[in-house]
C-alpha cells in the first residue's frame, strides 16, 4: 500500500522474471552429442525406495549404452543422459515436474515415474505436449484406456498380476463354486486395478468372494482385515499393497496364526520378505514382472542372470524387478532412436510403436494402446528360502507346492472373534496411550500442542532398529530409545520450543508442524522409506483352543506400556521434579516466585515427553512396523485421546487410549479397513463438536 510494500513486490516480481530468464528455455532434447531423457522419480515420500530402484535401473542402462558407444543416429554416436527431479511421491508435484521438464528443460523424451498414480498424473501432460513417455512402473490397466498415443509401457498390466494365482487355485481340483477367496487391496490406482482384474477372473470361474477390503495406504496394522480372513477361512488370499502391504501381511498372518492354503502377494521381492521373515514366508506366491532366473537375453546386458550379477556387483543386493523394467525402458528408447534415425518426437513415437525387441527383461512389442503385450507376468513361490518361478509353465523352475486345507474348518464363536478384535486393538491402544500421556504432559505444562509427537514415536522406532543393528540386546532397546529420545526432546526444547513457549497456541502448532516435516524427511534421507520391523523371536500365545491368539511381543508391549504409565504417575505424584512439573502446570508464575526454575522444568517435561514417545516407538517397531511417514496418525490419535480424557488425567488417558485402539479395530472389521482411519477422525470431530455443544448451552466453549 505504501512504498515499502511496493518495493518488496516489485523486487519479487523482478526476481520471478529473473528466474524465468535464468532458466535456459529449450536447453534441449539433444545438445552436442548427448540425448537428454527426462524423469521425475520419487526420491522422497512413500515411494522413495522404489523410486530409487527406478533411478538405478535407468542409470545402469544409460551407463551401459554409453560404454558401448552410445546410440547411432545419422551415423553419429550420441550419449544418453537423464535429467532427474524428485516428485515426492505426490501426483500434484509430478504434473508440475513433467511440465517443467518439457517446457523449461526442453526435454523431448520422457521416462516414466514410479507408480501408477504418478504415471496417471504425468501422462496427460506428455500427451498434451506430444512428447513420448516410455514408462516402466505404471501398470494400471486404466492408463491404457484413454487413447493416449504417446505413452508406452514395457511392463505387463495390472489385470495379469494375480490372475495366475486364481488359475492355479482352479487347477487344484476343488469345484470353483466351493472356492472361497479373500482379498485385500491397497486403496491406490495400482492395487485397485489389480483387484479389477482379479474380480473379472473370479467372476468367470464363479468363485466366492468372502472378504474384499480396501487397505488405506497409511495403514500400519492389518489385524482387522486378517481377523475377517480368520473367520471366513478362505482357500485363497490375495493381497496387494506395495512393499508395505506385503511385509505387514507376511508378519501378521504368521502372528495371528492364520493358515490359508494359498497366499498370493505383489511386491514381495521389493519387501524382501525372505530376508526379513525367513521360514515364515515359505510357500507364499509372489507376482513379479521379471525374475533373474528367466531365460531372456540381449546383446547389451547378456542374460537376465548376467544383469542380476552386474547389479549385485554395484549395489550389493539382488535386483528387484523394478530395476530390470526401468533399465528396459531406456533400452527401448535407444532402439527407437536408432530406428527413427531422427530426434523428431513424432518420428520417435512412430518408431516406438513399431518396437519389436528382445531384451534381458523379456520381449517388448506394443499394442495400439501402448502396453507391452509380448511379455507374460511371472508368478514365483517361496520354496526353501528362495524364489522359484512356477508360472508361466514355459519358464517354470519348480512345481507349485500346494497342500490344500488341513483338517476341517474350525468353529469360531462370535465371542472369540470379538475378543480377538478388542484385545488386538487394546494392544496397539496401549502404545497410543503412551504417546498421548506425553502430549497431555506437554499440553498441560508448556501449553503447547506438539504436532511432531508422531515423529518422536517414529524416531524412537528407528533408534531401536539402529541399536539392535549395532548389537545392543533387545531387552535394552526400550530404555535406550527412551534415553536417546529424552536427549532429542531436550535439544528440540533448547533450540526451538523455548522461543515459542509464551506465544499463542497457533504458533506452536505451526512450529511443531515444521519440526514434523523436518524429522520425517531426515528419517527418509537417513533410513529410507522402507517399512522396517524388528524380529523378537517371541511366539504367539493361544487361548481358548486357538480361537484367541495374541502374539507374545504385543503382550509384552502392552504390559510395558502400562508399567511405564504407572511409573509416570508415580514420578509425577511422588518425586520432587514431578511436583515441580505439576506446580508449573498449575501456575508458572507462582512456581517461579517459589524458586522453581521453570525453564528447567519445561525442558525436562519436553524431554520426558520425547522419552515416552521413544519408548512407544521401540514397542511399535517390535510389534508392528515403522517407516518415516507413520507420524501423523499417532499425533492425531494422541490429541483425540487427550481431548476425550482431559489434560491432567493419567488414568483417563490410558483408558481412552485402550478404548480407541479397540474401537478402531472393531470399526475396521465392521465397516471395512478403508473406513478405519476416517472413523478415528470423524469420531474426533464428533467428540469435539458434541462436547462444545453441551457447553454452549451454558454460554461457554471448550478452552
Amino acid at each position, binding site marked *: 500500500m505504501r512504498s515499502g510494500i511496493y518495493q518488496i513486490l516489485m523486487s519479487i516480481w523482478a526476481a520471478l522474471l529473473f528466474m524465468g530468464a535464468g*532458466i535456459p528455455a529449450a536447453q534441449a532434447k539433444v545438445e552436442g552429442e548427448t540425448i537428454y531423457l527426462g524423469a521425475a522419480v520419487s526420491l*522422497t515420500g512413500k515411494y522413495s525406495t522404489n523410486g530409487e530402484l527406478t533411478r538405478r535401473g535407468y542409470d545402469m542402462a544409460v551407463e551401459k549404452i554409453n560404454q558401448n558407444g552410445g546410440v547411432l543416429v545419422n551415423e553419429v554416436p550420441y550419449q544418453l543422459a537423464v535429467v532427474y527431479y524428485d516428485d515426492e511421491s505426490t501426483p500434484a508435484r509430478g504434473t*508440475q515436474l513433467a511440465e517443467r521438464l518439457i517446457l523449461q528443460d526442453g526435454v523431448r523424451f520422457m521416462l516414466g515415474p514410479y507408480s501408477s498414480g504418478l504415471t496417471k498424473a504425468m501422462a496427460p501432460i506428455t500427451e498434451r505436449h506430444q512428447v513420448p513417455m516410455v514408462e516402466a512402473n505404471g501398470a494400471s490397466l486404466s492408463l491404457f484406456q484413454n487413447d493416449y498415443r504417446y505413452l508406452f509401457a514395457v511392463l505387463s498390466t495390472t489385470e495379469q498380476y494375480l490372475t495366475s494365482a486364481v488359475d492355479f487355485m482352479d487347477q487344484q481340483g476343488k469345484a470353483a463354486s466351493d472356492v472361497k477367496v479373500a482379498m485385500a487391496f491397497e486403496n491406490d490406482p495400482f492395487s*485397485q486395478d489389480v483387484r479389477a482384474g482379479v474380480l473379472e477372473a473370479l467372476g468367470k470361474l464363479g468363485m466366492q468372494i468372502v472378504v474384499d477390503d480396501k487397505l488405506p495406504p497409511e495403514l500400519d496394522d492389518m489385524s482387522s482385515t486378517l481377523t475377517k480372513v480368520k473367520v471366513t477361512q478362505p482357500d485363497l488370499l490375495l493381497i496387494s499393497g506395495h512393499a508395505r502391504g506385503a511385509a505387514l501381511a507376511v508378519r501378521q498372518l504368521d502372528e495371528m496364526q492364520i493358515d490359508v492354503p494359498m497366499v498370493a502377494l505383489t511386491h514381495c521381492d521389493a519387501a524382501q520378505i525372505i530376508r526379513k521373515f525367513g521360514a515364515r514366508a515359505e510357500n507364499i506366491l509372489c507376482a513379479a514382472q521379471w525374475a533373474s532366473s528367466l531365460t531372456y537375453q540381449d546383446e547389451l546386458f547378456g542374460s537376465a542372470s548376467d544383469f542380476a550379477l552386474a547389479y549385485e556387483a554395484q549395489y550389493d543386493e539382488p535386483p528387484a524387478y523394478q530395476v530390470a523394467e526401468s533399465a528396459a525402458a531406456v533400452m527401448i528408447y535407444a532402439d527407437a532412436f536408432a530406428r527413427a534415425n531422427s530426434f523428431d518426437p513424432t518420428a520417435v513415437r512412430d518408431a516406438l510403436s513399431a518396437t519389436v525387441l528382445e531384451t534381458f527383461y523379456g520381449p517388448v512389442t506394443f499394442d495400439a494402446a501402448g502396453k507391452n503385450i509380448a511379455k507374460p507376468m511371472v508368478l514365483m513361490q517361496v520354496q526353501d528360502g528362495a524364489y522359484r518361478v512356477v508360472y508361466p509353465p514355459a519358464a517354470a523352475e519348480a512345481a507349485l507346492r500346494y497342500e490344500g486345507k488341513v483338517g476341517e474348518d474350525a468353529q469360531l464363536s462370535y465371542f472369540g472373534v470379538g475378543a480377538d478384535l478388542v484385545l488386538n486393538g487394546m494392544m496397539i491402544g496401549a502404545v497410543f496411550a503412551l504417546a498421548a500421556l506425553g502430549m497431555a504432559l506437554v499440553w498441560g505444562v508448556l501449553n503447547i500442542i506438539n504436532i511432531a509427537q508422531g515423529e518422536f514415536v517414529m524416531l524412537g522406532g528407528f533408534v531401536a532398529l539402529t541399536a539392535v543393528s549395532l548389537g545392543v540386546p533387545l531387552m535394552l532397546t526400550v530404555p535406550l530409545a527412551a534415553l536417546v529420545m529424552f536427549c532429542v526432546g531436550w535439544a528440540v526444547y533448547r533450540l*526451538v520450543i523455548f522461543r515459542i513457549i509464551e506465544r499463542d497456541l497457533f504458533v506452536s502448532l505451526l512450529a511443531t508442524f515444521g519440526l514434523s516435516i523436518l524429522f520425517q524427511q531426515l528419517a527418509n534421507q537417513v533410513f529410507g522409506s522402507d517399512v522396517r520391523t524388528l524380529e523378537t523371536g517371541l511366539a504367539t500365545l493361544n487361548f481358548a483352543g486357538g480361537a484367541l491368539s495374541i502374539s507374545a511381543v504385543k503382550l509384552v508391549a502392552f504390559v510395558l506400556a502400562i508399567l511405564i504409565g504407572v511409573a509416570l504417575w508415580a514420578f509425577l505424584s511422588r518425586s520432587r521434579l514431578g511436583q515441580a512439573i505439576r506446580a508449573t502446570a498449575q501456575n508458572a508464575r507462582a512456581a517461579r516466585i517459589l524458586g522453581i526454575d521453570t525453564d528447567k522444568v519445561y525442558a525436562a517435561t519436553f524431554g520426558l515427553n520425547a522419552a515416552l514417545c521413544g519408548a512407544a516407538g521401540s514397542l511399535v517397531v517390535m510389534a508392528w512396523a515403522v517407516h518415516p511417514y507413520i507420524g501423523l496418525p499417532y499425533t492425531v490419535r494422541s490429541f483425540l485421546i487427550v481431548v476425550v480424557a482431559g489434560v491432567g488425567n493419567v488414568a483417563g488417558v490410558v483408558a481412552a487410549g485402550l478404548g480407541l485402539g479397540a474401537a478402531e479395530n472393531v470399526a475396521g472389521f465392521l465397516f471395512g479397513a478403508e*473406513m478405519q482411519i476416517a472413523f478415528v477422525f470423524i469420531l474426533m470431530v464428533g467428540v469435539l463438536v458434541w462436547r462444545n455443544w453441551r457447553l454452549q448451552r451454558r454460554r461457554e466453549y471448550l478452552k
Partner: protein
Amino acid sequence: MSFLALKNPREASVMAALTVGMVMAPFFFPQLLQQLTMLWLMVVFALTWDMTGGQMGYNSFGNVLFFGIGAYAGVMVQREAGFDYHTGFVVGVLAATVLAGVVAMVLGIGMLGLRGHYFAIGTLGLGIAAGELAGAWDLIGAGSGLTSPLYPADAAHGRSAGDGGQFFYWWMAGLAVVCFWVSRALYRTRFGLALNAIRDDEDKAEALGLPTTSIKIFAWSLSACLLGAAGAIAGNVIGFIDPKDVAFAGATFGVWMVLMAILGGKGTLWGPVLGAVIFHLTQELFWTYLLGWQRVALGLFIISIVVFFPEGILGSLRTRFPALFGVRVEERS
C-alpha cells in the same frame, strides 16, 4: 461503490505493475506457464485462508476440504454431464463453487462453535476424514483417483490433445483477481469490521449485538466458494485427482495456505499475496537446487518463519517502520 475506489496512488501503482505482470508473463515466459498458474493458485489459497484465519481469528487447518470438494465436483461434472469441453468446464467451476459453499454452511453450524486450537484441530480432522471418505467412495473413483478430460486439440494438426496451459492460466489468474477484489471490498465495509471484532473479542462482539454465528458462517462459506472454484480449475491443471495427495492434500496445500498467510502477515490484505509469492518462489528454488533435501529445507523454513516472523513480513515491517504504513510516530524530544 466507494470502497472499490483506488485512492492511494502507491497502491494503484502496485496494482498496475501486478496487472501488467499478470498479463505479460505468459507471453514472455511460456515455459513457466504452469508454475505461474500454480502461483495464482497459491495466492487464492492464502487470501481465502486469511478471510477466516487472519481477519476473523478462526485458524482453519482444514480449508483444503473445500478445495478437494471443488476438484471432485468440477471434474465429475466435466466427465459425466455430457457437455462439450468448454461448457462442461464452466458448469463444473460453478457447481464446485456452489457445492463447496453449501458444505461450508452446513459444517459451519457445528464447527464454528469451536474456538481457538479446537477449531484448528477439528478442521484438520475434517480435511483428513474427507480424504479417507473420498478414497472409499467408488462413484468418484475411490483410491484410483479421477482423471480430468484432456483439453481438446485444434483439429488442424491432427494432435490427440491440445495444450490447455493458456486457458487454465487465465482462469486461475482471473480467480486470483476476483479473490483479491472480494477481500478488499469486504474488509472496507462494516462486515470487515465485524470480522475483526470477532477476532479481537468474540464475546464482546456478541454482547454488542453482532449476529456472530451468521457472520462466521457467511465468511467461511465465502472463502469455501472461492476455494471450490480454485479446486475445479486446479483439478484440470493437475489433470489427475488423487484423494489424499491432490484433492484433500492436508499436509501440503492445507498447511501451505496457513503458512503463506502467516509469512506475509495475517490479517492484512497484501500480506497473504506477498506470502504466497515468496513461498512459491522459495519452494521452486528448493525443488530445483536441493534435490532430495528440499523438504528438510522446507521444514527449517517453516520453523524459522513462525519463530522469527510470527507477525509475518508485513507485520514485522509495520512494527519496525510504522511510518511506511501511514502511522505517524511522534519523536520524543
